[in-house]
């Protein structure tokens, strides 16, 4: 059967996401947030999710809607501080002890995801040594430098925003839209991409930034 990863709708693309899933969400600083898929997931409503997302509170991301809807048990992120003095939806739940937080240095965050998709169960890194974010982690010295052992992160679902896709799931990104998208797709059991445009023809190989073999479903979503 010819490969065709185009999904009928955002709702259809996330309809089988179960309770308790670990969900990667791409995006940084306003670029690459899969906001159409985030809303579709919220409407589908699986509970007890673990979100793996750079920011729990970014003002241009709809991540907070999953949190406000009470669907999230835990967030693994690098940034959990809201912009305003008023606590964000995440901060309110976190202060009340109703949501778990794991704050990770950004390079370690993305490398743990990369490792998850690359068959590396754990790795040593000098980042975070001597800080409270690595407290209790195994430490070992390499070439006279103290390093901490960090474990890979694998997920059930990745929601990724890209610019263009073809029916094979090949993705191309605009500017800084790429950020966490490619590694998140590699580490997830099911990778769903929303894109500005689905091409009628196969994407020229030199433009492919994430091979379609890592992408399971694609949805066209204008903005």
């Amino acid at each position, binding site marked *: 059967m010819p490969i065709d990863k185009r999904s009928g709708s955002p709702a259809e693309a996330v309809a089988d996401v179960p309770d308790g899933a670990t969900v990667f969400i791409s995006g940084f600083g306003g670029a690459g947030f899969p906001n159409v898929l985030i809303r579709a997931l919220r409407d589908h409503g699986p509970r007890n999710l673990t979100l793996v997302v750079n920011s729990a509170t970014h003002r241009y991301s709809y991540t907070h809607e999953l949190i406000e809807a009470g669907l999230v048990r835990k967030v693994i992120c690098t940034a959990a501080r809201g912009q305003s003095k008023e606590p964000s939806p995440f901060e309110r739940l976190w*202060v009340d002890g109703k949501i778990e937080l794991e704050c990770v240095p*950004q390079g370690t965050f993305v490398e743990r995801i990369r490792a998850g998709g690359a068959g590396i169960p754990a790795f040593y890194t*000098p980042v975070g040594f001597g800080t409270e974010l690595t407290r209790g982690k195994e430490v070992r010295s390499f070439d006279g430098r103290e390093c901490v052992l960090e474990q890979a992160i694998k997920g059930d679902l990745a929601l990724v925003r890209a610019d263009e896709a073809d029916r094979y799931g090949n993705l191309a990104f605009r500017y800084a839209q790429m950020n966490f998208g490619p590694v998140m797709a590699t580490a997830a059991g099911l990778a769903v991409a929303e894109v500005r445009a689905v091409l009628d023809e196969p994407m020229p190989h030199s433009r492919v930034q994430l091979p379609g073999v890592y992408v399971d479903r694609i949805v066209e979503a204008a903005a």
Partner: protein
Amino acid sequence: MTMQPLNRLQTAWRAAQDISDGMLVNLGLGMPVHVADYLCPEVDVFIQSENGIIGAGPLAPMDRIDTDLVDAGSRRITLRPGASIVDSSWSFAMIRGGHIDVTILGAFEVAANGDLANWDMRLPNKGPLVGGAMDLAACARSVWVIMEHVTRKGAPRLLEACTLPLTAVRCVTRVYTDLAVVDVTSAGFVVREMLDGISEAGLRERTGARLTFAVSCKPLRAPPIELPD
């Protein structure tokens, strides 16, 4: 002579004078991003942003804003000629791999052994935000800090030991403040430049650790730069 501390932009200007031609530079949020505005004209550098941009240019003018082209501070920027963009995994491999010549970071506190505290002020009811600070502090080839010499309440920020949560241990090599340029050496803080109108005793009073004054200690000077309203 009355003491006229440098303002934030003048401090950024002073740090910019130490950026050498050809460096790959990462600038932290806040005061450090202004360093890019004061580089010497003959200096050609690439500015790396942790979200994968190699060759960040100035802020985008209103009519050329693109929400997909942002820097680590979510600011809408442009690209310089020769720029490229990679994903976050590659960006942090670049940072951890020692390919960043210098990162200039803001800070709350710096200790005499080079320990840096710049990520968590322990604000009540506010979540933590570490971003790429720990990666940059631990792995850039040089880590410079720009900060005010004392807190708003007048407490020193240069200390024997940090009191706030650490970002990385023994990483800072140089600190630019509104009063002085201070190197972090194996013998502790060494003052390289000091503002006109402040005495050695005056600087010691504003510092929470032992200071050594370099034999070649020079006046700290910057051209007048007005702060925006």
